[in-house]
């Protein structure tokens, strides 16, 4: 397949072991059962008792999806500044510093190149622990560069989203990142390169109202909260209680907004099969 250009990794491979809280046992948030941690991890952090999908870090996600040893990170130095000099109870600058120390990341997304079932792809995975995966200049820049790399290297793009919404501390610059990424995706689409969006719990606000909802395919994890407005804002506006399951993945699927809800343990397989559908040379049986 001359379709995919071979490239030499320019950046060192990050082999980072994911930190987990101490203790051998974990209590499941959903079924309240006590689960043996090793068993949980082996099950990709899905509760073996009730299938509840525990939130995982971006690096854990990359480990679960990328073919072993193939992930090469890009743009890890792209970092947030404080363009507005924003201060509420804390200065935005200090919030950034804390989150960098806490997560070891400079921004709420890890972008890189890897193989997925042998297909070279660009992949972006958002990190909720970094300021709630909020949309910001550095984040928009990294996503846009990843889209542009997809175009340059003629590779498909996979973005795994998790976001609580806008980063208010960057004001309208946060908003503009939606247009920046969406415009880049329009160019990607013109090139006929596949983009698969995976929405995880939660994917709301500016991220949902831009790239997360623009995939050729849009997958979501079970029970993930996905929507434009947050449930609290809606409740305060309409002064009604929201129906059970509102804005959950199953609700979106029912309303035609998702292609498929994919169990985390099937995610890699489903992504690979999708890439095969789009890209692999057809082999006629019995020909």
């Amino acid at each position: 397949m001359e379709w995919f250009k071979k490239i030499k990794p320019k950046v060192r491979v990050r082999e980072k072991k994911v930190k987990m809280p101490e203790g051998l046992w974990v209590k499941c948030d959903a079924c309240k059962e006590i689960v043996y941690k090793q068993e949980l991890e082996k099950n990709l952090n899905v509760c073996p008792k009730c299938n509840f999908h525990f939130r995982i870090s971006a690096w854990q996600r990359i480990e679960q999806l990328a073919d072993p040893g193939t992930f090469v990170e890009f743009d890890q130095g792209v970092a947030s500044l404080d363009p507005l000099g924003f201060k509420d109870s804390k200065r935005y600058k200090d919030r950034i510093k804390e989150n960098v120390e806490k997560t070891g990341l400079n921004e709420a997304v890890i972008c890189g190149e890897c193989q997925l079932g042998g297909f070279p792809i660009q992949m972006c995975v958002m990190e909720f622990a970094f300021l709630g995966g909020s949309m910001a200049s550095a984040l928009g820049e990294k996503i846009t560069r990843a889209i542009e790399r997809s175009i340059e290297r003629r590779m498909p793009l996979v973005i795994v989203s998790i976001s609580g919404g806008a980063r208010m501390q960057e004001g309208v610059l946060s908003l503009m990142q939606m247009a920046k990424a969406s415009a880049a995706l329009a160019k990607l689409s013109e090139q006929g390169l596949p983009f698969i969006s995976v929405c995880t719990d939660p994917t709301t606000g500016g991220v949902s109202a831009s790239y997360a909802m623009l995939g050729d395919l849009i997958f979501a994890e079970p029970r993930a909260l996905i929507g434009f407005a947050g449930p609290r804002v809606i409740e305060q506006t309409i002064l009604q209680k929201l129906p059970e399951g509102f804005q959950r993945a199953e609700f979106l699927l029912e309303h035609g907004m998702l292609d498929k809800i994919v169990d985390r343990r099937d995610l890699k397989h489903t992504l690979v099969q999708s890439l095969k559908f789009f890209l692999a040379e057809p082999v006629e049986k019995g020909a």
Partner: protein
Amino acid sequence: MMYQAVDFERPIVEIEKKIEELRIIANGGGMDVDEEIRRLEKKARRLTRDVYLKLSRWQRTLLARHPTRPYMLDYVGLMCEGFIELHGDRAFADDHAMVGGMAWFEGIPVMVIGQQKGRDTKDKVYRNFGMAHPEGYRKALRLMKLAEKYGRPILTLIDTPGAYPGIGAEERGQAEAIARNQFEMATLRVPLIAAIIGEGGSGGALALGVGNRVLMQENAIYSVISPEGCASILWRDTAKAPEAAEAMKITAQDLAELGVVDEIVREPMGGAHRDHKRAASLLRRVIRRHLRELMAMSPEEIVAQRIDKYRQIGVYEEI
């Protein structure tokens, strides 16, 4: 229409009322009040200048939401001829918060689209306070694609508190509709000028806002979240909205400095609501200049310029 004043313009309105009264007295009884009127007029002018030259960001927010500010259809009436409204998204409904149609701007056929707020209570409800549902954004996109098909420039007039947060809106894909508009607008092969004429409320504004040019009236605001919303999240107190407005930097001046807005459009002294006609003529002049520039460009240049404009926005470092 009863003139409704926001707090900080009340002293000016008081003086203007007094002048009006004196004029009536003078007309009736031949009393000489000319000098008094002149004195009061001078005072009103000075006061207006003092108040309006140093408006806080919150005061501008109040002007952007002023109940007598010209709305989308007022500007269409004052700037365009022959407006023919076109309805519906051809899929679900006609959203009354979103208005669009064919019109002639100085003889040029343009598709004009924008959110419409209501004046009185009944009208406000009919227009859903200028907050569109997904079908509104889809109608807007349908009209933009129609304009593109026939090579007509697009003019969007943005004035919305935001996209409507409700059950039906989420069921029908508010996020998708807003995302889709940005995606499709990026590559439209005709000139697109977006003007923020009041409230530029977050994604609901951006869904009409991906333009070759983004213009903003001097008392309009454009923000990722309302000052009240920001205050309730970060300060846990909506009364802190004025502080949030300051912190988020939401005025035309701020946005021009951040590279988001291309030109600030002047308003009549005291705000667009004080003189609708003058406000429209100031806006028309700026739109005309940009439209001429853009109409001289090829479709390829139009698309490249628009995408590049957004590509440049953002402040970050590389370490």
